[in-house]
């Protein structure tokens, strides 16, 4: 199982690919909408790419609970364990 940092790095790569936000800005305490300016459409792209990368399922109803990068990393850690 990937470490917290590995998951954050993986997510940061995805976010950079989809939105152009620099990977180093994608830190655990950052809000996807308020800090990283990711709109709802790009968020769905990020989620689907994360599902693929980490081999997990992130149900649509969970996405609204993933406010920060840290929330997403925690969800992926739990879903993958």
């Amino acid at each position, binding site marked *: 199982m990937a470490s917290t940092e590995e998951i954050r790095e993986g997510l940061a790569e995805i976010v950079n690919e989809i939105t*152009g936000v620099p990977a180093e800005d994608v830190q655990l305490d950052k809000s996807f909408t308020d800090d990283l300016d990711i709109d709802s*459409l790009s968020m*769905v792209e990020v989620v689907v790419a994360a599902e693929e990368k980490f081999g997990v399922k992130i149900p649509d109803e969970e996405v609204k609970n993933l406010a920060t990068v840290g929330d997403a990393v925690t969800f992926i850690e739990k879903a993958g364990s």
Partner: protein
Amino acid sequence: MARSQARVVVTGLGATTPVGGDVASTWESLLAGRSGVRKLTQEWVADLPVQIGAPAAVDPSEVLPRVEARRLDRSAQFAIICAREAWADAGFSGKASEAGLDPDRVGVVCASGIGGLTTLLSNYDQLRDSGPRRVSPLAIPMLMPNSPSANVSIDLQAQAGAHTPVSACSSSAEAIALAVDMIRLGRADVVVAGGTEAVISPLPIAAFANMMALSKRSDDPTVVSRPFDKNRDGFVLGEGGALMVLESAEHAEARGARVYAEVAGAGMSADAHHIAQPEPTGRGVITAIRKALADAGLSPEDIGHVNCHATSTPAGDVAESVALNAVFGDRTPSIPVTAPKSMIGHLLGGAGAVESLATVLTLHHGLVPPTANVDDVDDDINLDIVRTTPRKLDDGPLAALNDSFGFGGHNVVLAFRRA
């Protein structure tokens, strides 16, 4: 209805075409008679009955930032590129409010013939191959035909309205006609108008080929598109588009804008005849030309140039010649005409805009670009076709027409006048 007194002028030009990534390079290529038709190199071309096309000279990926481009269908990428060039050319920078304009008085009419077809097809491939979860959340915003128009309105902060006429190959000429209406009716002072198309892809090529619309010649690609020539056998599919900044003459004058030409009027009609064949007597085209002249307050004697629709199909080119002769009578053989599709192919929903832009520049510079590949004029064509080298037009008052006709029997004729 009485003709409105508001005059509409062209103050900015933007284009990306098979012969140039901007207006200057496109115009230079047209004057030089340089063709943008090439052998297509994509893998998928191998099984197709037609393996040539006229791709954009400059790929939009070379112009737009990667992240911006990936959220836009190629047709909208073209639109954004054209809009930014036209906007800057008109002397505006930044969004409408930053450019000193009232955003509620700025509109967009950006046409598409087919819409985001390649986005639709690639998402269908995802659905079929990888399941529904892999269909992009951006699929609908990218494939909807109003996407180029909406994206231009967002980019420029154009809030007076963003419209998308769809009439196949006359779509972007119709866009210019509707933009003129917006200004005449007082709904906007400035309208960015034109259209784009981006469907060089296996399905449209197969479909157009099966309609017998495309040339099946397999010799040198640059000689395949040959409007008015005896040996023409269909059009060549191109991509790209153009947008122009149209403005009320009053608004342009108040800000001291450079004026390329006046959009003097528009005429539209429908053949009500056949979904793909031109009406052989040219009845609908004749009506559209007469309406354009009347709307512009011009008589046939005022017209000194026609930028033809002429796609290089056997029936269509003759029908256009028949119609022009019906309107202009004995004067027809003394009106220089040209057919840009001989060099850029057929841009479908982008064609009317690019060719209107060429018409505007023809009036502005007093030069008619040549038609390529007219080696042996068809006996049924009775027109003064400018060939080989550009034709100089006389100084002084001058008006010109641009013809655009679309599958479905849509006829749009625009009249332009020297400013």
